[in-house]
């Protein structure tokens, strides 16, 4: 491999023809061999074994393992004089899952405090474009949704969780419509559905390609307007709090990005809704994720003793942008491929069925890039074409009608997807695994719930499109209800006993206490805000 791989962008653009005669993609004989050879999850150098904690001995992505087996940011001395707030339910995270959990808890009479690292609504939810998976078409069923989800996840997902989510689907959409979320309709008033990768029926409902934005602004407004929900913004969680024996979660510690002060919250139920890990740039990949996606929830849950799962499995979404540079890693929704767009290598050939599961499509793109059939931009990054002009030619006006966000993002940078094919490369998009939960979102640690991307078990080793937006509302509401039902009198004493225990474990395992976690912000964005 060398830096001179592929054809320079200008040359490749000149060769591109939206009306070229292109045949079918080659049949993929052995998808597993393709994954083994090219998908980062399957390459031995990207994983290691955890040495301490509830998952000792399990495989874990190397950089994530460093954070899971790191020292805490705070100790008891930091908490001296920190103000304490008592609340019924504490939600950590202000994306879709956190808002759904807060609203569900408040609807059942709990006093709720929602604390978020950045601004309420700053999340991966707001960027989600494609839609929500829900089995509502006559030729579809809840059972088929369950089967597609499990198969897409390579049959290691937890069937009980998947069934719970799929069965919740129709009611989740009703709940969202009641809250004021709009969806695309057909002429007869049905919800418009699309079929996407790994699905046996049309099952994606959507609000053009702004589904996440539409969902997030409705949820955000609902939370802001709710009388029983208090919101703290710009307040990352730096540690959980435990009871005397360090086995039960009874609150959390936050450090304000505004005044730098620590604040403690005491409660009987903590709901972690902190999202994913894209901003750790695992294996050197760019990411589609928002700036706060640094895996903080995984680190905090693991330190207090929660079981995690599938920590060596991440989703590299096939169509992350390579060009223009300021949108590097940002997503082009799978909906574009679902609508019929093909992918072409630098030789102008299709190389894989575009609607195979995401991990396989990504591996195929990485193969084209490594074997030199790619387009290279000036700074050496490479990609393949997503042929949007051909889609526009075959269905004139489609991009403007169904993908306004795609066009809007390019407006400021002089690229028009209707005329120029998009240069794409897999981008770190989603954490497939996460904290082990039951159907109520309860973790293996009493008092601690986990919902949304931070939780694991639903998507197996590969999430199919539209299940993330469904999961966050389905399990967000479930955890909100369960957390409210837990009516003990709350903690007598709050401690950092679990931090002391984790430190002892690390010392005994001979792991140096040089690294501290959670990460809070990526280093390139942390200047003057966050010094560990």
């Amino acid at each position, binding site marked *: *491999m060398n830096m001179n*791989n592929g054809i320079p962008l200008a040359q490749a653009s000149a060769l591109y023809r939206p009306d070229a005669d292109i045949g079918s993609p080659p049949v993929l004989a052995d998808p597993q061999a393709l994954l083994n*050879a090219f998908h*980062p999850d399957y*390459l031995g150098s990207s994983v290691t074994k955890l040495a301490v904690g509830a998952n000792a001995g399990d495989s874990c992505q190397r950089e994530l393992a460093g954070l899971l087996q790191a020292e805490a940011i705070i100790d008891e001395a930091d908490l001296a004089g920190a103000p304490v707030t008592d609340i019924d339910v504490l939600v950590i995270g202000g994306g879709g899952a956190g808002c759904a959990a807060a609203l569900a808890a408040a609807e059942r009479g709990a006093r709720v405090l929602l604390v978020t690292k*950045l*601004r309420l*609504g700053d*999340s991966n939810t*707001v*960027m989600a474009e494609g839609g929500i998976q*829900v089995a*509502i078409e*006559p030729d579809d*069923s*809840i*059972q*088929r949704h369950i089967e597609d989800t499990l198969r897409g996840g390579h049959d290691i997902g937890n069937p009980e969780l998947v069934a719970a989510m799929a*069965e919740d689907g*129709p*009611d989740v959409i009703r709940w969202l*419509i*009641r809250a*004021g*979320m*709009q*969806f695309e*309709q057909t002429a007869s*008033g*049905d*919800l418009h559905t699309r079929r996407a990768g790994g699905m046996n029926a049309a099952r994606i409902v959507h609000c*053009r390609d*702004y589904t996440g*934005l539409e969902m997030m*602004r409705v949820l955000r*407004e*609902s939370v802001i*307007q709710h*009388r029983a929900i208090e919101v703290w913004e*710009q307040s990352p969680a730096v540690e959980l709090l435990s009871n005397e024996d360090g086995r039960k979660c009874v609150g959390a510690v936050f450090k304000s*990005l*505004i005044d730098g002060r620590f604040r403690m919250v005491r409660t009987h139920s903590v709901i972690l809704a902190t999202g994913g890990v894209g901003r750790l*740039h695992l294996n*050197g*990949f760019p990411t589609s994720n928002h*700036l*706060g996606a640094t895996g903080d929830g995984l680190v905090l849950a693991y330190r207090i003793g929660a079981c995690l799962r599938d920590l060596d499995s991440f989703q590299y979404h096939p169509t992350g942008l390579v060009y*223009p540079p*300021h949108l590097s890693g940002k997503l082009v929704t799978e909906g574009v491929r679902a609508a019929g767009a093909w992918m072409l290598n630098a030789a102008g050939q299709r190389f894989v069925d575009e609607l195979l599961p995401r991990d396989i499509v990504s591996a195929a793109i990485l193969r084209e890039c*490594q074997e030199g059939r790619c387009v290279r931009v000036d*700074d*050496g*990054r*490479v990609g393949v074409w997503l042929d949007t002009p051909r889609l526009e030619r075959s269905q004139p006006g489609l991009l403007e009608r169904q993908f*306004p*966000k795609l066009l809007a*993002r390019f407006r*400021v940078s002089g690229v028009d997807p209707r005329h120029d094919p998009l240069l794409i490369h897999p981008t770190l998009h989603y954490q497939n695994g996460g904290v082990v939960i039951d159907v109520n979102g309860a973790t293996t640690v009493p008092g601690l719930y986990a919902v949304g991307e931070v939780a694991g078990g639903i998507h197996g080793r590969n999430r199919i499109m539209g299940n993330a937006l469904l999961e966050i509302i389905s399990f967000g509401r479930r955890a909100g209800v369960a957390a409210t039902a837990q009516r003990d009198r709350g903690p007598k004493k709050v401690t950092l006993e679990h931090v002391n225990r984790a430190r002892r474990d690390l010392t005994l395992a001979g792991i140096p206490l040089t690294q501290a976690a959670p990460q809070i912000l990526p280093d*390139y964005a942390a200047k*003057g805000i966050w010094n560990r």
Partner: protein
Amino acid sequence: MRAAYCTLNFFDFSHLTKTPMTTDGDNPQTINLTINGVAVAASAAMTLVEAAWHGGVPRVTAVSCLESVCGSCRVLLRRGKEVTVNLACQTFVEDGLEAVFLPPQPPPLHHYEISDFTDGWNIQARFHEIFPEASHCRNCHGCVLSCPKGIDVEGAIALAAAGHFRDAGEAFLECVMCELCDSACPELIAPAHVGLFCRRVTAHFHLRPPNLIYRLEEQRKEKMGLTGASHDEHE
């Protein structure tokens, strides 16, 4: 061993964190501007967010999605005597530009819970109770000029005040709730929240999709045991 990571290592974020290779002031590639009062020498084609990180501007916490859908990175821009607003992640560096990241808009003054609305016939009256300022628009265009998404905010507010909630809401499809129009409005109309209200009541009262309702009804009957043994045809 497969050199699998050679291509991956191309994803180098050093352009965000390190000094660019061309740092001398007279290089045409270097753009000089100020961000939050700090002088920054940036590379061309950087956004204001990238330039702020690159220049080590402290305490820039209002950044999140980096693709102009979260509405967090509100900036005030001064070019000579011209003052405008925008989102930092979609604004590119320019020589002599003065940029200041704005604090978030305070929580809205208008309160309603959508579950309180049960009768669609009085929704216009409820709207004017909740947003009494919406009919006071003096057509100053401040909201239109401030919108980073090019929404005809003023026209949409007029539609909302006349009860055309569906059309008004549609105009706000691309609204990212940056609330720059709320900041700009001298009548305190809170246009972004008016727009969201319009979208929400349209869905709340009018979205009744037959295919969704049919499946919900199937599930309800199953739960009540009315379908008996045929619990699920696919099992």
